């Protein structure tokens, strides 16, 4: 009987893991709770740092999945990993047997309404970076009443590095997302003034720092070092924000047409359920803790459970896809040994 591996989650990491397994001659099945493959990538418009259309990456991955003959089950949620990776239970109560499991269930978006002081879902013109991606896809950035915003403020670290919402980690990709979106607004509306309120600019990837510099030099985006402490709505539905300009050491107030909250990556909701399985540990942040950060980044303490992508930590798309490849190779080797 040929071996079969279950991939939990059909985001970029899970798709690539499945494809690589098939290339290695191992049957794989992706179980995805949404109605289609792609994970968060389905929602993005253009990708940092190259402004590549998200569809280009997604279509290629879908093609690979189709060509390799991976079995795909959509609208199907895994609720439990059993018997150390030899079985999974689905939400409808049924169970599937497997020779190994690759957990690629990704991350959750931080719900910005938890930071009530910024007024998301309370004031009209407070949005998140996720909303902005939707606007870019749907024809452009507009205020609630359909106007082109003349001033936009971005706020970094919403739902990251914040004890108050129990999210201590840095989400890594949000700094560059903010920079990318600030540029896109300027490309769309050159006369719009864009302000970015940041604490630290974390440009960890190739081409990221260059994009930041471009945002400063070519697009005149104003970077203000200070965290917005609160926002309120004015009578004409604009947003008044308060911050300290920490480089001057004075409080600052300004009114903008639109406030964009740069939301972080939160540990996936399923992680707590995965941790009930022996060999699966979580960090205090609830991201899954791999066996070894240096030598076993896609492995768990259980012989038949492997990880790929943002289930273990915030990552960009390239890193997540590469982990899909790495996990598949680890699985193949483990199954060969047995």
């Amino acid at each position, binding site marked *: 009987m040929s071996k079969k591996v279950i991939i939990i989650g059909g985001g970029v990491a899970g798709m690539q893991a499945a494809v690589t397994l098939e290339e290695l001659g191992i049957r794989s099945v992706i179980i995805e709770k949404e109605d289609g493959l792609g994970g968060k990538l389905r929602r993005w418009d253009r990708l940092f740092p190259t402004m590549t259309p998200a569809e280009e990456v997604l279509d290629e991955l879908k093609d690979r999945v189709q060509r390799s003959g991976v079995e795909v089950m959509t609208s199907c949620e895994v609720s439990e990993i059993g018997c150390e990776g030899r079985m999974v239970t689905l939400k409808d109560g049924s169970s599937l047997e497997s020779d190994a499991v690759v957990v690629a269930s990704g991350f959750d978006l931080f719900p910005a309404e938890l930071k009530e002081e910024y007024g998301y879902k309370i004031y009209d013109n407070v949005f998140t970076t996720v909303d902005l991606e939707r606007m870019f896809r749907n024809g452009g950035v507009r205020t609630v009443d359909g106007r082109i915003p003349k001033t936009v403020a971005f706020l970094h670290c919403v739902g990251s590095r914040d004890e108050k919402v129990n999210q201590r980690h840095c989400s890594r990709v949000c700094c560059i997302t903010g920079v990318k979106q600030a540029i896109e607004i300027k490309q769309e509306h050159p006369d719009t003034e864009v302000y970015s309120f940041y604490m630290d600019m974390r440009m960890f990837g190739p081409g990221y720092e260059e994009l930041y510099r471009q945002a400063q030099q070519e697009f005149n985006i104003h970077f203000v070092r200070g*965290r917005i402490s609160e926002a309120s709505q004015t009578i004409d539905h604009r947003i008044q924000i308060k911050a*300290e300009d920490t480089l001057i050491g004075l409080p600052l107030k300004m009114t903008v047409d639109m406030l964009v909250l740069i939301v972080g990556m939160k540990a996936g909701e399923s992680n707590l359920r995965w941790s009930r399985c022996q060999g699966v540990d979580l960090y205090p942040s609830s991201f899954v803790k791999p066996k070894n950060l240096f030598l076993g980044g896609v492995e768990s303490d259980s012989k038949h459970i492997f990880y790929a992508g943002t289930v273990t930590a915030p990552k960009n798309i390239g890193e997540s896809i590469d982990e899909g490849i790495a996990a598949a190779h680890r699985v193949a080797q483990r199954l060969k040994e047995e």
Partner: protein
Amino acid sequence: MVNWGYTITRVRRVDIDSNDMSYSRKLLAEFPELQSCIACGSCTATCTAGNLTKFNVRKLQTLVRRGEYEGVRKELEKCMLCGKCRLVCPRGINIRGLVQKLKKELPVK
């Protein structure tokens, strides 16, 4: 003595070499959460006193950490103990508590 009308300008850089860091060290040992401050300025931005006067609580606590105590105690009188700073701090630092501690411990000058 002839008064030439000149004074010696005091060097206005923070001189860690000659500053007395003993209180700074003691403070951080007793109030270690302060070390996690990321200087985001949320406390100052939201501060009731800071929006009416030049009072800047982020700057004051940073000065103390650097061994610069002069004038800090007096400046802290402006705090209204409203506690808003504590509510917004992303590091969960009890800044109002810190202000109270500093007011007790720093020399009045």
